[in-house]
């Protein structure tokens, strides 16, 4: 079992996303600690990109706020190292191909190891382009998470067979963001994944309420929440650690109910 899969040791997991540096790096640090204390099983830290084409307006705005505050990849590495003194749960980076490519993939993943980042999620690296990065990531103990979408169809088996860490199942068409209802046949997709892979599956995109988190965890192994958390941060700014913690606790409880 890899460190990423530690997140799934209680059968069902709650995965929380945060955009690093929004509203500032100190607050991000506090929010990560608060999320871990309140039961998050894995934390995805978004390294903001100027043009996040897979994101909806909520995370895009958070990314732009963060960059406007002077956030850089180096400052995020420094913050994670500091957070690691207090937080032991698995952590992943979520970012775009260009930031790794320009930073230098060897250097990037070496720094991931230093900061004990355990996985990477890159929405603009599909199956066809992953070979460019995966060996560099694995060499430094970083697992590369694959995404599967409702439009993946005949690609599901191929992607699942080579997947590592956990599989990120995109719940619906479109970009990240809160949705009132999820219509895709996720159970059907999960079934095909299970036939091809033993690694855990998390469902993300559009999950905001405990009820949705329960359903996701029931259908798969984890609920992944991003925009709903980023919304709380947008609303509360520097005072966000507490309300985010309360929200994570509520969501984690819902996910745990799915394990019963």
């Amino acid at each position, binding site marked *: 079992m890899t460190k990423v899969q530690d997140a799934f040791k209680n059968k069902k997991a709650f995965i929380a996303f945060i955009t690093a540096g929004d509203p500032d790096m100190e607050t991000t640090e506090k929010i990560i600690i608060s999320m871990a204390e309140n039961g998050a099983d894995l934390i995805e830290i978004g390294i903001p990109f100027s043009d996040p084409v897979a994101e909806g*307006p909520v995370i895009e705005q958070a990314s732009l706020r963060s960059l406007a505050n002077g956030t850089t990849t180096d400052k995020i590495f420094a913050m994670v190292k500091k957070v690691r003194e207090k937080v032991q749960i698995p952590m992943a980076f979520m970012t775009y191909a260009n930031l790794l490519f320009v930073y230098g993939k060897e250097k990037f993943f070496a720094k991931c190891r230093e900061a004990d980042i355990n996985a990477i999620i890159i929405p603009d690296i599909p199956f066809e382009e992953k070979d460019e990065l995966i060996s560099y990531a694995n060499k430094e103990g970083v697992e590369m998470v694959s*995404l599967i979408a409702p439009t*993946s169809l005949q690609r599901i088996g191929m*992607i699942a067979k080579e997947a590592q860490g956990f599989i990120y199942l995109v719940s619906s068409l479109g970009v990240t963001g809160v949705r009132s209802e999820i219509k895709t046949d996720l159970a059907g997709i999960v079934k095909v994944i299970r036939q091809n892979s033993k690694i855990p599956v998390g469902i993300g995109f559009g999950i905001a309420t405990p009820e949705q988190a329960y359903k996701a965890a029931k259908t798969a192994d984890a609920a992944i929440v991003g925009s709903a958390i980023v919304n709380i941060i947008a609303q509360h700014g520097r005072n966000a650690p507490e309300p985010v913690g309360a929200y994570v606790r509520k969501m984690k409880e819902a996910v745990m109910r799915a394990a019963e």
Partner: protein
Amino acid sequence: MSKKGRFGIHGGQYIPETLMNAVIELEETYNEYKNNEAFVKELDDLLKTYAGRPSLLYYADRMTRDLGGAKIYIKREDLNHTGSHKINNALGQILLAKKMGKTRVIAETGAGQHGVATATAAAFMGMECEIFMGREDTDRQRLNVYRMELLGAKVHAVTSGTQTLKDAVNETMREWTKRIDDTHYVLGSVMGPHPFPTIVRDFQSIISKEARQQILDTEGRLPDVVMACVGGGSNAMGMFYNFINDKSVRLIGCEAAGRGIETGKHAATLTTGTEGIFHGMKSYFCQDEYGQIAPVYSISAGLDYPGIGPEHAYLHDTGRAEYVPVTDDEAVDAFEYLSHVEGIIPAIESAHAVAHAIKIAPKMKKDAVMIICLSGRGDKDVAAIARYRGIDIHD
């Protein structure tokens, strides 16, 4: 590792999984139809009877005499229906979209030329059409917005990011991930994920296919220099393509240097950019040391883009083509020059190529031959150029 859709190291398919089946379907459909006799004839007929091809290769006698050097020919893409080269690609892609059973097309636009071409082809072929255009560009090019609406398209003003062409591309890609089943994304330039750079290049390569034959017919020889403006690079790729194997022909792409390279306010990707991955492709981009895409600037909305198509990046790497910066001032001077001297008002994008011709033609021998691709007409730019000269005209 898949080498599909690569130009040297450039190109590739750096897009979300949600879009992968759509680009694979597009590639398969394109491969099926590109050599299909009926399809080729259908597109050829449309280009002749609807778009007005072939476009003229016009000998610019007065300009040639005035500059006193190379013989200057102008490939008149401005005379196409809708006023630019963009119709070549729009007709081709919408015909493909029909073959794929799509009923709706979406597209980004900068200056509005691609948006107008797409809206036109969509109206003509009975497709629903939505265009994404940066808020700043909807202000700069208000006439084109109205024109697209007149053609039945819905125009979305994009308010995210820098509110220009790159943000319009972001938003169109987002829209495509939301609605793939019935929708084709008519990408307007030789950029984006494979197979777009190849498809758009092929549809635009008719420019050089005609021009090469026309110059052989007129001059009995190949040109010494072929030049075009470059944003994403579709008219340049179309103008270069059939000359690439003619090693004696210099290929020159003219990038937007905005207020000047030294001011940082420009969109000169190959002059100043570095390798990166953005908008589905590996290529050169204007970006910072961390890979954040830089805000770019040009007087020309169509060249105001921080990247360049992957095949241009490859032609740059191999040295087969040269890329030079041209400032706003030089482009505006050329805009006025061509209007006075030849009675042709060029698009401000195309004026970048005219400007470089004005620089180099006098230094060339009198028996040398140059072709400039005039990618579009300048009616859309008249008000903006007037304002640039301090005359308060609003369209």
